């Protein structure tokens, strides 16, 4: 089974940057995109998604609210929240939802830990 990752960010440019980093690090993964929380939920209703990366500051529901909702539905799915907003409360909420924090601007180095950790968890879960 291939791995599908959903990228949720209101900025098209940010989605391109995330997508490029994922392609470099996990070239076999299938990448899907959503521009806001509602589109993301619709994507989850439509197909199997293994990993999700969420922007924090988006119009409508923010990435943390979405992370909390997704965590309820998918207790073990690797979730990351990407933001430059490194306030203690935001990091704490991401941790409480068992989501990984990724610093923006996003770089391959910044993504490596989350993606390899996610790949490892998915492999061991499918055994």
């Amino acid at each position, binding site marked *: 089974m291939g791995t599908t990752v959903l990228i949720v960010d*209101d*900025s*098209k*440019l*940010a989605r*391109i*940057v995330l*997508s*490029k980093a994922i*392609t470099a690090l996990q070239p076999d993964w299938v990448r899907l995109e959503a521009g806001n929380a509602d589109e993301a939920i619709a994507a989850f209703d439509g197909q199997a998604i293994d990993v999700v990366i969420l922007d*924090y*500051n*988006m*119009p409508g529901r923010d990435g943390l609210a979405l992370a909390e909702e997704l965590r309820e539905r998918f207790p073990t799915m690797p979730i990351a929240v990407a*933001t*430059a*907003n*490194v*306030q*203690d*409360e*935001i990091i704490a909420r991401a941790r409480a939802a068992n989501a990984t924090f990724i610093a*923006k*601007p996003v770089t391959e180095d910044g993504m490596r830990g989350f993606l390899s950790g996610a790949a490892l968890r998915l492999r061991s879960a499918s055994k």
Partner: protein
Amino acid sequence: MSPQTILLDDLERDALTELVNIGVSRAAANLRKMVGEQVLLSVPSVEVVSREGATTLIRERESGELVAVRQDFEGVFSGRALLIFPQTNSMALVHAVTGGALSSEDAAEMENEALAETGNVVLNSCLATMANMLQRPLTMSLPEVIRGDGSMLFNLSPGASDGGVVLFLYINFAINDRDIRGYIAMLMDLPSLQALKGLIADFIERVVGGA
């Protein structure tokens, strides 16, 4: 047709919004360290408007007197960055950044200094983050505290020959559990917007190139 559609294409506008979002998010994290409370941010708004339009955008939200910390920035593109809040929030912000350590008299005496330093931290972290991402240095003037209405805050350079059109970026912020809210705003005139457009195109090329 608005000037905006001529000047920035969709991806450039998207990239600029994302740059501002990252800059302001860093700024909010630094402000949070100063006030000890979570700082809430809106999604940034990027518009090309007349100076009067910028004034109207603020006036529609804020009818009272405003206080702003102003820093002008200069480099390949130049403009003005402002941390703006209602005059009635000013002392609450001073108390928040001084951690309640000052008496009311001392706080009143320190007001301008505390506001200037707060503005300096917030605006510098925002502009420096953007400058780094665009790979061009910006020099920042010293912070200056000004009081007045929107038209006074947004008057970039008297008699500028840009037809009065400016790039206006703004974000609302609020400090959790305290009755403090305001705006971070940036203004650039047209020649700067042209220079910025070139830098944004380079930035897009760097981050998207080869995708």
